[in-house]
């Protein structure tokens, strides 16, 4: 196994690291939340309070997990007092952050697959329990639309991952006081992303026509330009984070 792969594997371990007691309870909480979520969803479905849009747009919020996962991977180096070991490694800061980026992306893929399975399960339940509203959405349509949604999410998650890393590093430099500005910029970025990619038709009544089940996924030029811009921005933020880590972060 190469050095980079070993670093990635270690960073995946850091991302999911919990103490034993918390790991035990987190499993209990996770399964309880699944059961409660299923019961609540069923009640809302039967009383017609849940719409297909909710299921369509929900995966977009997964993007937030990529931000917080990457931020946590770096913060845990400081909190766990392993940062001295991490930063003495004789590899470029880009390589160290590249490993964390890769680990964050792999973790995100895992979460995305779980969310996809849950989304499909909710769709199937909707079609069974409320066929009058959900009958327009056959499996092929749902799969295609969810697929498009996930392609957009996966294309955007690098930007969120590097943003999380940058924020975590910023906390350990003399530039820490500008962190609140970072949150403002981050809020702006998120609203821009949602308005560009996901939100253009959210106010449309889904019942009027089945085509609005997925609230306004961008297509064509807007999508391609948006994704390319997000890649460029992600690259620039990554370079800046590596620069901060090398030149300004202190232990």
């Amino acid at each position, binding site marked *: 196994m190469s050095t980079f792969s070993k670093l990635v594997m*270690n960073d995946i371990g850091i991302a999911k*690291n919990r103490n034993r007691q918390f790991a035990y309870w987190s499993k209990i909480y996770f399964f309880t939340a699944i059961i409660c979520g299923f019961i609540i969803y069923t009640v809302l479905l039967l009383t017609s309070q849940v719409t297909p849009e909710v299921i369509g747009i929900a995966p977009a919020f997964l993007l937030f997990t990529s931000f917080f996962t990457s931020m946590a991977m770096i913060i845990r180096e400081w909190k766990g007092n392993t940062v001295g070991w991490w930063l003495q490694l*004789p590899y470029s*800061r880009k390589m160290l952050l590249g490993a964390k980026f890769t680990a964050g992306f792999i973790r995100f893929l895992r979460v995305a697959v779980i969310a996809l399975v849950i989304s499909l399960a909710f769709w199937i339940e909707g079609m069974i329990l409320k066929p009058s509203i959900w009958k327009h959405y056959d499996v092929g349509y749902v799969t295609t639309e969810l697929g498009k949604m996930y392609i957009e999410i996966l294309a955007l998650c690098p930007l969120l991952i590097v943003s999380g890393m940058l924020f975590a590093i910023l906390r350990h430099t003399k530039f820490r006081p500008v962190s609140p500005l970072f949150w403002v910029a981050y809020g702006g970025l998120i609203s821009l992303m949602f308005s560009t990619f996901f939100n253009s038709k959210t106010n449309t009544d889904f019942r009027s026509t089945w085509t609005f089940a997925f609230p306004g996924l961008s297509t064509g030029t807007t999508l391609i330009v948006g994704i390319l811009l997000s890649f460029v921005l992600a690259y620039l933020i990554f370079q800046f984070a590596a620069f901060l880590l090398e030149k300004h972060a202190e232990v």
Partner: protein
Amino acid sequence: MNTAVETIKLTKRYGSKIVIDNLDLNIEEGKVTGLLGPNGAGKSTLLKALVGLVRPDSGSISIFGQKPSIKLNSEIAYLPDRAGWYQFHTVKTALEYAKSVFPGFDEPKSEEMVKQMKLDIDMKVETLSKGQQACLQLILCLARNVRLCILDEPFSGIDLISRERIIQGIIESIMDGSRTLIISTHEIYESESLFEKVVFLEEGHVKLAGEVEELRRQGDSLENVYRRLYR
């Protein structure tokens, strides 16, 4: 004798507090040097600066004739003060990780040290005692074939038996005399026998430095020299 570490007019401030103050220091290659001094003397900051974990405000550092750099860290094994290790590792996976990421890591030597320090190879780090974790981290440092080994407070908060094991580990690692070792510690009594040279720091500058044998001839133990200097 060649110089392993040299600082010239080194200064580091945290805000208005000067932690290292125009420090001129020479550490000889191939010797075991003790870095002693009270809390706040600047020992840990100096050691961090050697591996690039803090950046000096002015002055210069030279390690084997080179400026500290990421690349040069492949020649240095550094045990940070109050460091932790990845809690999800077992002792075995920690050694495997070290073998992959630390240049010069000698796996057979590390396994031998694990046996000597009576660590269970399959135990998770989170289940090890504080002393056992310290022993593991020491192994991760000492099992590397590097020119410079820096140990910052390796005995801090460690029980007597673990301390003796750590000292034994250090003694065995310096037997061949090829590496330079810098040890910062408050545990002077236990570690005195390890040192060939000693540097006493106070408020970021050298208060006294010299050969341990020479200091002993002038006074008595390092502990007494320490008391005299800082009382």
